[in-house]
């Protein structure tokens, strides 16, 4: 892990995607395992990222500190091996050629998220408040075009501070939610080709070529909860676009979701279906694919610990046409460990350019 960090830092300091992947903040291991759903089924501080109204799904209070999550693509194993064997540099032309030769056609991706979450339920009707501080670092490299290789590098460091509240209306069948967030972003997005290497162009660095910005915005959401045994839910969220100076802005987004919760003895099943990016601003111009915006998944909880957490959880789902699965063991809030295997769509339509990824999560809390 330490060497992996060293590698990321090496890219930041010494040297160093791309359209296709719809990048959002705060997509966690649980949501990813459930096909990147959460508009009505988020049950943790992730609600602040998905739909603040779903804070009403929480019926207790806790603090996660620290929360740590590592996401990596299968191709990043090569980066790890390189790091283990002493790392690499991209200073000379030959170094750059060697790197292109080794990684051509590969997509090493590493994301590290850490932070602190605090969630407090005030009223069983759905009045909850939450806040979190999240630090998210992404390194996404693609070496493409075997004819004249290009290293496309996307690197982003985000600091997110956000606060949210869910407010029940009446008995709590309808819930409104709001999040206010401040995001500080540093990023570097470039393509360095073989021609650049031949012409002796400097390899871009975050320090000299990066973009940065800070901005604030809000999310507004609602949730309807059916007062029945099946506990059907539907909800939606509006995410205001946030300008971030020179860095890539966060696009405006509308999303809708439906879901249900079924309880069978020691089992609890949650089903979810979300339609996200209905504003069509998260992807490339002209991308109107509904499959790209369809997410569905389920969670089977065994031995429920509370209304929002089970001792063991098994999950699966489909996101943008790609299958996902995951599991979690939860020792109340004291220690949570989870893992997810999912496929991220990095192409321009559902099923075009899948990237196999793994998420490892653990948190301590109380």
């Amino acid at each position, binding site marked *: 892990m330490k060497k992996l960090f060293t590698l990321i830092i090496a890219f930041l300091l010494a040297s160093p995607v791309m359209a296709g992947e719809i990048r959002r903040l705060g997509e966690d291991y649980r949501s990813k395992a459930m096909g990147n759903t959460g508009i009505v089924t988020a049950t943790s501080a992730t609600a602040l990222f998905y739909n603040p109204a779903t804070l009403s799904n929480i019926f207790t209070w806790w603090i996660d500190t620290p929360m740590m999550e590592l996401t990596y693509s299968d191709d990043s194993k090569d980066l790890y091996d390189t790091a283990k064997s002493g790392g690499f540099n991209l200073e000379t032309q030959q170094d750059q050629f060697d790197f292109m030769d080794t990684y051509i056609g590969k997509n090493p991706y590493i994301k590290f998220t850490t932070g602190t979450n605090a969630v407090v339920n005030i009223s069983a009707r759905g009045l909850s408040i939450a806040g979190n501080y999240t630090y998210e670092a992404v390194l996404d490299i693609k070496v493409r075009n075997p004819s004249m290789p290009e290293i496309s590098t996307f690197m982003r460091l985000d600091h997110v501070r956000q606060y949210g509240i869910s407010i029940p209306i009446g008995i709590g069948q309808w819930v409104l939610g709001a999040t206010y967030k401040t995001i500080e972003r540093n990023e570097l997005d470039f393509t360095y080709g073989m021609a650049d290497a031949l012409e002796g162009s400097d390899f871009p660095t975050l320090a000299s070529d990066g973009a940065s910005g800070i901005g604030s915005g809000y999310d507004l959401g609602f949730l309807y909860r059916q007062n029945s045994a099946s506990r059907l839910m539907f909800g939606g969220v509006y995410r205001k676009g946030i300008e971030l100076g020179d860095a890539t802005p966060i696009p405006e987004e509308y999303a809708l979701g439906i879901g249900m919760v079924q309880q069978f003895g020691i089992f609890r099943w949650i089903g979810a279906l979300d339609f996200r990016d209905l504003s069509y601003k998260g992807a490339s*111009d002209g*991308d109107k694919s509904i499959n790209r915006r369809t997410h569905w998944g389920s969670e089977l909880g065994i031995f429920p610990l509370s209304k929002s957490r089970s001792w063991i959880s098994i999950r699966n789902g489909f996101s943008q046409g790609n299958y996902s699965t995951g599991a979690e063991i939860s020792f109340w809030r004291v220690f949570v460990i989870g893992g997810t295997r999912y496929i991220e769509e990095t192409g321009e339509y559902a099923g075009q350019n899948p990237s196999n990824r793994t998420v490892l999560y653990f948190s301590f809390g109380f």
Partner: protein
Amino acid sequence: MNKAIQKIVTLFMALTLVLTSLSSCKDTSATHQAGLLETCMTYSDQKKWSDAVTACALIDTDDGKHLTAQAYMGLAGLSLFDVISGLSTVDDPMTLILDKIPATTGKAKNYHNALQIIMDDITVKTNTMYLEALLLSSMLVYKELSTLFELKVKNGAVTNCASSGSLEDCSFTFTVTKTAGYASGLVFDGLGADFYDAICQDRDSAISIAASTALTHTITNTITSLSQSQSVSYDMTVDSCTIRDGSPMAYNKLAGEGISGFDDLADSLSQLKIYDEIDQGVNFTQSVDDLTDDISICNTGYITPPVSGDGIINDCEILGYLNPPAN
């Protein structure tokens, strides 16, 4: 009311799940420009060159055209990455260049397709594109030169049929006819129209100049070793071509003029600028055993000697490139 909503939502979820399951939630093709570009790039990454050519051709931008050109190169088995990284490190670029010349007509056609797209279709050309064009065009010319001159790599050095200093090992050598031991005639049939068709794309209007005349030479009798002045008849055919737009030579000229930078490739670039190397107006001269003075195929008054940079190439110039006269 609640039951009605519950039924509607349940029905909607079930219907959506069935539909998305049936369709696997996947799309089958791109519907927007970025999607078309991604399809093209994905095929390229996978080295599915034939599919890449088809996919990239749908993108009507310079980027798309460039990728189409690169896909044609891939289809021909040419890895620019190997060539260029090799050129920047090897001491003898000619060995590498000869190793990459297209081996078949089909591959040469793909080289030419790529060249045509880069030089004719792309609106704004980058330095890299000029480098690619220079490589492709020079290799197409080297392909013909290689066939004609039997270029070979031996022990790291490039040899040709005239490496010994004369053309006698070449298929197009001079023929000396003799009468009573004295040279009485010189015959040269030319390099052939096919060569010029390929490099100048002058297939329909290949210019062939034939001259039959007699010049006086000092001749030494090979039997008696006595010398005397004697008229020697010439029967020379000189093929030539005017470089046409769209030909490898024309592209090579334009790419050579357009390229700049690439200091690390300076040695290699001079070898790739094959037009500059050939159209230098060097007139070929050849010594013939029986004749005291060297002979030139192109003689003023009979066959016009080559002129530097005139866009016309003939046998005298080609042979002069192959076996330049000693200073």
